[in-house]
């Protein structure tokens, strides 16, 4: 069974020889950059550098699928008018200014959305990545999800307050970001990705009441998933225990969760919906600042708890040591010996 079959089969619920290992959020890791010779910030915007760094995850990190569309979760927000902060080799793009902090009366979905921001570069990049590894590796695209994007446009603090006090303003913003999310994912599928991840950190219980997630976020995610041409994976950070059911009800093919969530329970729930689970080795405390032995142990635990795809729980921190990252594949190989 080749790697592409292993990953696709698992995603489709078919037989696999072993659990795939990889990363399904960002992996703009400095050690990968040094190894492949293509560094951020060039790799944030240049199609070739982005492609080489994507493949470095497979070559040096042992990842069995690769990521398209760069190393941050700001692409939709950028194309809708957010000003981004300056990236460095060890710091991804971040949201610097919220263009609709004063109100969303004038917000509209721009007809030239896919010509804005980094989408033209992504077009070339996905084509290139497909040419290079598309026959043997699964490729996924990723952006921030509709709720997180909307919060970036308004300002997260104000937006989550609006979610309680001004739901009509939230709905108006989500109407636009929903279109952006659908457009971005279908664009990625058109150019050849195999699945698409929406990262939704701002919608998680670390900030938002799960009851509001159910009321405001779930219907939007459902609608988005229903309009996308291929499988969607939904990533939410933090302790997602209270919203695992809702994440599974979005229609996503997979959910990606952190170590703060109960993986075993999540797998039980998700499998009831036919949903796969990605996770959940701790990025900050273990892959970034722990020892190789700790990463190995956490990876084994994740496998024992039934993860469908052995992954970090979130985006890998740029300064994470390569020696730590490769422990995930080592653990998986040993587990299935």
């Amino acid at each position, binding site marked *: 069974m080749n790697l592409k079959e292993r990953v696709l089969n698992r995603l489709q619920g078919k037989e696999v020889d072993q659990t795939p290992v990889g990363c399904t959020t960002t992996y703009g890791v400095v050690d990968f950059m040094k190894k492949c010779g293509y560094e951020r910030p060039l790799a944030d915007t240049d199609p070739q550098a982005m492609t080489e760094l994507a493949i470095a995850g497979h070559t040096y990190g042992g990842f069995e699928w690769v990521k398209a569309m760069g190393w941050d979760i700001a692409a939709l927000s950028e194309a809708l008018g957010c000003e981004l*902060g300056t990236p460095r080799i060890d710091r991804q793009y*971040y*949201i610097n200014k919220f263009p609709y902090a004063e109100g969303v009366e004038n917000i509209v979905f721009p007809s030239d959305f896919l010509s804005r921001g980094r989408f033209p570069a992504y077009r070339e990049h996905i084509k290139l990545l497909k040419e290079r590894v598309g026959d043997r590796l699964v490729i996924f695209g990723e952006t921030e999800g509709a709720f997180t994007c909307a919060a970036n446009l308004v300002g997260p*603090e104000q937006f989550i307050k609006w979610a309680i006090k001004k739901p009509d303003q939230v709905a108006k913003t989500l109407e636009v970001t929903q279109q952006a999310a659908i457009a971005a994912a279908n664009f990625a599928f058109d150019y050849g990705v195999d699945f698409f991840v929406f990262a939704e950190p701002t919608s998680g219980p*670390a900030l*938002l009441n799960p009851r509001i997630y159910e009321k405001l976020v779930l219907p939007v995610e459902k609608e988005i998933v229903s309009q996308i041409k291929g499988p969607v994976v939904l990533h939410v950070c933090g302790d997602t225990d209270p919203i695992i059911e809702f994440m599974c009800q979005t229609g996503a093919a997979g959910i990606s969760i952190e170590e703060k969530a109960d993986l075993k329970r999540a797998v039980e729930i998700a499998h009831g919906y036919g949903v796969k689970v990605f996770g959940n080795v701790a990025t900050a405390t273990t892959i970034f*600042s722990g020892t190789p032995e700790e990463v190995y142990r956490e990876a084994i635990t994740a496998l024992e708890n039934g993860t469908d795809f052995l992954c970090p729980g979130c985006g890998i*921190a740029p300064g994470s040591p390569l020696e730590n990252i490769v422990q995930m594949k080592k653990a998986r190989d040993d587990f299935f010996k």
Partner: protein
Amino acid sequence: MASEERTQEILKGLQQAVIEFDEDKTRELAQAAIDEGVDPFLATLEGLAEGMILVGDLYNKKEYFVSELLLCADALYAGLDLLKPAIVASGRISEAKGSIVLGVVEGDVHDIGKNLIKMMFDVAGWTVYDLGKDVPLEKFVEEQLRTDSDIVGLSALMTTSMISMPEIVQKLKEKNPRVRIMLGGAPITPETVEKYGADGYAKDAGTAVDEAIKLIKMLKTEEKAK
């Protein structure tokens, strides 16, 4: 002077207004407290702060989340903005609790957690010097020296920004060995605090003030022992 019954009514009302994040109601009752001669210090502590403690219980029970806490904080500030000047005008010098310089470290713009921490210190009667977000290293040192604060609180949400914390801790300690430094934010653990040479850790806003008081007490005990 308000009767005891009316005072209790105002205090309970303030608590409830904070819990229900009703800014107008908090403002109205804070004004009533001032107009009717209720001690503004009492209204702050037994009304607003007590309300926030009850909010903290709801948070711990997972009935409230940060989304609600932020709204409760707005309601609390609506009252505090009226009561603080009244406390000053009354000539009552509140027991000095301490002072803290707070900020989110450079490269990080996630300030929701920091703002909640700020509120807890504000309502507990501390003097808070809030540097905001994306704060350069030197700014923390300058502000600590300028204000001679008891505590410096550093916040980070990203692993990419938390790595600047050890340098800030070192610089602060070099300039002023008496200062006590607290770290907070999603990637921070008690182990990080130890590794980075800081002094305290608060897992959330509810425990931050207690931890800060503990640090100051420890410092005073150490100095007495010398």
